[in-house]
């Protein structure tokens, strides 16, 4: 399913305004979080889900303030634990649309264990991972996605920890959906959020999000019109991997190795290129590794989407099976199966 269509079901009475809470966002001016909030407010009315059936769950960090600014149900938990909280909620209440706002520190550092286990279990959650490659709320310490060499208050000589590759981690953990978006490209971000909402299972959206205070311009290479075209590639289902200012460059697969080719030269045409297939986990795994190779453009879009039963559906099916002869009563529970009579 390709998805440029973000205007499927429109609730007649609700607009972005209806999804704004009465609390003023307290993020810094220029923070990428504002953009994500803005796109969510635009998207939510389009989903056709009543506000009372939507819950935003978050952990701790700048991005985790997200629930306060949306007029849905919201619960702001503790550091790293948004995913288990959302999972418990979704298991108890499969009828709800459950969203998670988390960050690179929250999800990948203190919550790293929950991150991998949530992905493999695949509850139907929409997870927005605001990746700014820094700890913002605690004022500028390096995070598990900070680049090698980044100088911060806790890495005055430069970061020496190898960073996580979020896409590879997601796919490696058995996740069923990974997409990457960018705070500066609102329209594209919204289309990705819509795809995440439509995916049944854990939809992991990594959002490159600029922290203007502690890690400004971390994603500058993909931001300015000058360098964006050559450094990014927008992937679309069934379309060849083409990028560059004049759409004149492409990615070809040489075995498992992605190679950049010049389409202006006669020896290559778009028919030689890698055709994106988000159902192909091997290709998705190669796309995930683009981030480790400087000569390759950074991919944005849906890397991988797999249909797999959700955790809550599998559990509900087991419960339904065991209740095939009806739900058992309190009386039966108290009596148990090994009771005996003394006469």
């Amino acid at each position, binding site marked *: 399913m390709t998805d440029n269509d973000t205007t499927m079901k429109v609730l007649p009475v609700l607009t972005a305004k209806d999804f704004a809470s009465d609390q003023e966002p307290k993020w810094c001016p220029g923070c990428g979080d504002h953009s994500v909030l803005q796109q969510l407010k635009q998207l939510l009315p389009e989903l056709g889900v009543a506000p009372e059936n939507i819950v935003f769950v978050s952990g701790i960090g700048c991005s985790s303030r997200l629930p306060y600014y949306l007029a849905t149900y919201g619960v702001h938990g503790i550091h790293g634990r948004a995913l288990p909280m959302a999972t*418990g909620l979704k298991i108890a*209440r499969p009828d709800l649309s459950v969203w998670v706002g988390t960050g690179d520190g929250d999800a990948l550092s203190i919550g790293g264990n929950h991150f991998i286990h949530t992905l493999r279990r695949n509850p139907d959650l929409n997870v927005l991972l605001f990746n700014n490659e820094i700890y913002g709320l605690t004022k500028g310490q390096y995070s598990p996605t900070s680049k090698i060499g980044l100088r911060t208050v806790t890495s005055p000589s430069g970061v020496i920890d190898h960073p996580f590759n979020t896409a590879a981690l997601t796919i490696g953990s058995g996740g069923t959906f990974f997409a990457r978006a960018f705070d500066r490209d609102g329209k594209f971000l919204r289309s990705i959020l819509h795809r995440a909402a439509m995916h049944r299972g854990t939809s992991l959206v990594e959002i490159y999000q600029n922290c203007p205070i502690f890690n400004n311009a971390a994603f500058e290479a993909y931001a300015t019109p000058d360098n964006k075209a050559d450094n990014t590639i927008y992937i679309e289902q069934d379309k060849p991997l083409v990028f560059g200012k004049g759409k004149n460059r492409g990615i070809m697969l040489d075995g498992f190795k992605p190679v950049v080719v010049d389409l202006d030269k006669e020896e290559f045409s778009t028919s030689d290129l890698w055709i994106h297939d988000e159902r192909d986990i091997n290709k998705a795994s190669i796309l995930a590794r683009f981030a480790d190779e400087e000569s390759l453009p950074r991919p944005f879009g849906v890397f991988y989407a797999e249909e797999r039963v959700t955790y809550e559906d599998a559990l509900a099916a087991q419960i339904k099976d065991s209740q095939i002869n009806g739900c058992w009563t309190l009386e039966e529970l108290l009596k148990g199966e090994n009771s005996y*009579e003394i006469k």
Partner: protein
Amino acid sequence: MTDTKKTTRQVNVTSKTSVSVLFAGDSGDGMQLTGTQFANTVAIHGTELNTFPNFPSEIRAPAGTIAGVSGFQLQFSSKPVYTPGARFDVMVAMNSAALKANLKNLHRGGIIIAGTEGFDEKNLKLAGYPEGANPLHDGSLDNYIVFPVPILQLTREALKESGLSSKEIDRCKNMFVLGLLYWLYTLPLEGTMETLYAKFQKNIWMAEANIKAMKAGYFFGDETELFANLGRFDIAPQKQHGIYRRVTGNEACAIALTAASKKAGLELFLGSYPITPATEILQTLAKKKKYGVKTYQAEDEIAGIVSSIGAAYGGALAATNTSGPGLALKTEALGLAVILEIPLVIINVQRGGPSTGLPTKPEQSDLFMALYGRHGEAPLPVIAACSPVDCFYTTYEAARIAVEHMTPVICLSDGYLALSSEPWKVESPDNLAEIKPRFQPARESGDAPYLPYKRDERQVRSWAIPGTRGLEHRIGGLEKQHETGNVSHDPENHELMTKLRAEKIARIADSIPLQSIDNGPLKGDLLVLGWGSTYGAIKTAVEQALEQGYSVAHAHLRYIYPFPKNLAEILGNYKQVVIPELNNGQLVHIIRDTFLIAPESLTKVQGVPFNEMEILTKITDLLKELQS
């Protein structure tokens, strides 16, 4: 040596009131199964019963060693019993390590049934006996009645034509012992036969081999001269008629959570992580899907409680179960549950600590952690179960308090209650207290704005669950403004909210029963104040002290925070108070601190329960001191 004639000789049957038996052997000898079968048979027979398994934390410690000894103790009686017995009257020792590890707890003059093959040179060496020494022959057991029985040889003989492999045959030796004990206590074989047929439905020859071994044990008692002088025993059944079931504390906790969810009209969600000795609660609930129960084996202890908080936020009756190290990991999330003011039941099955400590052994050393183990001012109710059956009533009460007072509640059990069992007269649903969730109804446009932290006269807020129209609101771990629930850093507001949260918990005292005196005079010389699993030992000791004419009473606390309102008055009715605990003295601190009195403390931190003699001695010592 077996007499092939199947005639039953006349053997004297002596009536006894009460017997405590220990089945002990190597952890591969099947002693837990033997004990459980024996317990089922005496339960159905209608005697009073209390059981306690005792096994190593290793799954298979080296065979033949003391570390590998596994035991199952039970006391059955014609009158109420509250413990598996301080000492046992009969010990089955499958090997020399089992004898060595348990002899100190056998009554002088008690019976030893020893499997002679477990006393060969190799086993004696593994058990650490000096070279050449064999307790079966060296006179060291002269104070006991010893029956050496070649259990393995007799089992092999009985099953030589069964077609089973020699390994399979040897595994049936525990059934031989079981049959012998059934003979000794004039108990029927039928119950175990039914169980074996049900268990080996698909391998009927296996059931038949086990039954043959059991019958061989039974007839061995009948046919040999070995037991002629001892005779057989009969414990008269005494239970009132009715329907019963035998439950362990952990099973009772699981049943209670399910019952509470049914009674409250809520779905039950258990977020959990396996930990000894609490795991059976998760295991039992995982099998209760037909009651709509949802269990979630999380990736760690933290995800266990946090998933439960998510489920509670969604309107489920949510619970998590753990033991000490797990409770430590959950403490941050407990603070979140306190500030969110949502219902949550935390069952902590205490074990020896700190750290990994004694994972399979009971202790009451998490009381301070339950009361105080959170950052910030985070009071929550703490209640404690006192017997396997009481695990049902206390857990049910924890769920009632959680739902009706919108708070996390810690329910304390321990490794002793968790694994002990006793018969339970099946409860009628009508006898269970109502549990009424206070769901906030939907709001229509034009209604006043919804205030998530508006409180009733008990300072309890309402439960506004997602899916309810017009109640969309945002809450979290940040301090909240009074009533609106919006984030607030206002100094006065923080103090107000701190005091309101504390008052809400303190006011639970208005809705719980007054403390009662379990046994003894309402005023007198000495009050024994207990909590948790020490109930049985205290009960038995106080009964004996009263019989001896001492002025002593027993009160046992279920509600530790808040205390029942009349506790101060009760404590004032006695010249002295003594508090026995399986820790280094925790409740005694709290009583001293709350009531400004100086109770005596009796502590034991050995990973084993009190025996009644220890408590009785303390009672009599204190009373003699008081009189002098």
